């Protein structure tokens, strides 16, 4: 059996595994019940930045072949869908029915299974919570080869919530029932505000957040001095039909999401440096002047990076990491401290996303909890390790934690501290998978399972 080298979206730490592409739940069962000495893990579209969808020396199930929609109920918003389908495809299929996925992360190129495994969040978290909150039931192939249907409040609720955010380590999700929202149009009415420093940006984001369905801010960590952390606060609600200009009213549920270009795999290391970072930040800031009530489509508002395919190649062959953490609301000071440390260490992060989370859910390993979450992109290079270790200490001391879907380099200890319910999760996982069939590079690296 040939081996395939796999990496995450950050293009770091490649390892090889035997990749199988099951076409049915039965084929998943067959793979799970013949796991070999190094186990099995499911992989979707490979958008996790680190190594949760790799399994060195073992089996990796490429789930993208399992991608059918079984039913759509336009009235109740219930859809039954296979785990390998991408959010992008699902949205295209359900929008004509006036249905909307309540949780959309920064890219639509993730699978339903991945969205459950990482319990992903989006710009609407403060209102709708994370992905697991919208799953009515899921079908999980467990280590014994059984296909179990789990619900959030049923008999197997513990396993359901261990699977939500469980990074694929409880089993393989093959199908899910999701509850979608109703919308009149596929557009947003967007309020954009340019705010010229970090303190004001955070202050402004704290006010009126509940009036908007989606809020996020992008800021610039390259500019120093009094304009340190200047940024753009973007907040939006779903546009009603009446709010659309006449031109768009003819086809209000049109899915407007072009991919204009794909980045070739030719970039040298170090292309993203202080100069290009500065240019990018400036352009990003300038393109979004303060403006209220603008009508924008999905790509403009939610997924500006989806216009460019394979944009991660722009970081060159050494790859990059995305550092995302959450700290409690009363430790908003950490955001500034982290940015200052990064700037002092000479690290350039061109794209920084800051958001205020709402309440978390019941999943022991779910990342979101009430607080501020910051996400920065950093190219891999000298000094990065020391900086990240320093940031880890700041974040953990403030009662924060790391997002496993982005994580690629921290210690088992950091995860234990950030996720105090890790042992509770382990108990459920160990009961469902006593032989340790499900394993990934991440589970070995962070000693999760």
């Amino acid at each position: 059996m040939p081996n395939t080298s796999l990496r995450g979206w950050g293009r770091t730490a490649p390892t090889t595994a035997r990749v199988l592409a099951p076409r049915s739940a039965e084929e998943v069962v067959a793979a799970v019940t013949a796991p070999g000495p190094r186990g099995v893990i499911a992989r979707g579209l490979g958008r996790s930045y680190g190594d949760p969808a790799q399994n060195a020396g073992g089996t990796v199930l490429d789930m993208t072949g399992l991608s059918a929609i079984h039913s759509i109920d336009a009235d109740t918003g219930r859809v039954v869908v296979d785990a390998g389908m991408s959010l992008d495809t699902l949205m295209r299929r359900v929008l004509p029915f006036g249905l909307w996925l309540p949780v959309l992360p920064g890219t639509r190129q993730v699978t339903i299974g991945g969205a459950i495994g990482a319990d992903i969040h989006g710009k609407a978290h403060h209102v709708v919570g994370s992905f697991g909150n919208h799953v009515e039931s899921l079908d999980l192939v467990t280590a014994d080869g059984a296909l179990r249907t789990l619900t959030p409040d049923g008999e197997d609720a513990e396993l359901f919530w261990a699977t939500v955010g469980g990074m694929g380590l409880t089993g393989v999700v093959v199908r899910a029932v999701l509850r979608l929202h109703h919308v009149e149009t596929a557009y947003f009415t967007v309020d954009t505000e340019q705010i010229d420093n970090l303190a004001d940006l955070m202050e402004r984001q704290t006010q009126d957040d509940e009036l908007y369905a989606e809020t996020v801010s992008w800021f610039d960590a390259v500019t120093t001095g009094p304009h340190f952390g200047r940024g753009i606060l973007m907040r939006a609600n779903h546009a009603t039909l009446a709010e659309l200009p006449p031109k768009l009213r003819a086809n209000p549920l049109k899915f407007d999401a072009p991919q204009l270009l794909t980045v070739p795999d030719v970039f040298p290391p170090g292309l993203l440096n202080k100069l290009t970072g500065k240019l990018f930040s400036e352009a990003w800031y300038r393109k979004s002047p303060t403006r209220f009530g603008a009508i924008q489509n999905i790509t403009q508002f939610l997924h500006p990076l989806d216009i460019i395919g394979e944009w991660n190649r722009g970081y060159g062959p050494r790859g990059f990491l995305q550092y995302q953490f959450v700290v409690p609301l009363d430790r908003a000071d950490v955001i500034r401290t982290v940015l200052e440390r990064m700037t002092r260490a000479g690290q350039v992060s061109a794209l920084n996303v800051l958001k205020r989370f709402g309440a978390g859910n019941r999943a022991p390993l779910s990342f979101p909890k009430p607080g501020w979450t910051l996400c920065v992109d950093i190219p891999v290079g000298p000094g990065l390790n020391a900086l990240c270790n320093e940031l880890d200490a700041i974040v953990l001391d403030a009662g924060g934690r790391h997002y496993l879907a982005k994580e690629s380099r921290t210690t088992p200890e950091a995860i234990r501290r950030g996720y105090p319910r890790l042992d509770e999760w382990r108990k459920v996982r160990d009961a469902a998978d006593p032989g340790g069939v499900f394993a990934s590079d991440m589970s070995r690296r962070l000693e999760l399972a």
Partner: protein
Amino acid sequence: MIDAVGNPQSLLLLGGTSEIGLAVIEAFASDRPLRVVLAARPSSRLDEAQARLEKLGCAVEQLPFDAKALDTHPAVVGKAFAGGDVDVAIVAFGLLGDNEQAWTDVDAAVELAQVNYTAAVSVGVLLGERLKAQGHGALVALSSVAGERARRSNFVYGSTKAGLDAFYSGLTEALRPFGVHVTVVRPGFVHTRMTEGLKPAPLSTTPDAVAAVVVDAVRTRKELVWAPAPLRVVMSVLRHVPRVIFRRLPV
């Protein structure tokens, strides 16, 4: 696992008292505590090495290993992997020998060849098998510039390193499809116990400097490195110098 910024979690040193090998472990351990297996013949020097690494926060295990006892190698390598994956394995054992004795005394010559070449090949095969199965990992082999062109003053040692170098260079290619990264390291004259009392060659270096080269090579998955780096150019020239001139050079 080796993480996104190149930190390993576990390390196996074959030749557990090798100064270069230990310097590599210390360099990695300065970023993160490691699980370390030191494979060597039991000695007070090995105990000291263990104590030093434990002070850095490493969990250290000693594993009795005699390079000359070839038939024990499979069991030793098996035990080295008993505690879990090995992220970085370093083949660092070797003898320098006395060249004048080695080319005139058959026992001395055979001992050098067995330790430096045969034993290195033996563990190379066994490590390759394990690393291939685990689907990831780095394998570092300490070669020498002495293997690049045989010198009158050091050719028996040089010949053994030439053999090791060729074997591990080939192993680099053989293990590549399995996610295993092999690095062949060619140090020049390194100030260690092994070279004590010898006249240092030009561009001489220290174990710590070699370690820095090795750590960088593992992190960036380089397959062949010289320590110090300028030796690459120097050796490239020396390899092609005509013999009549080469034998007159003070190297």
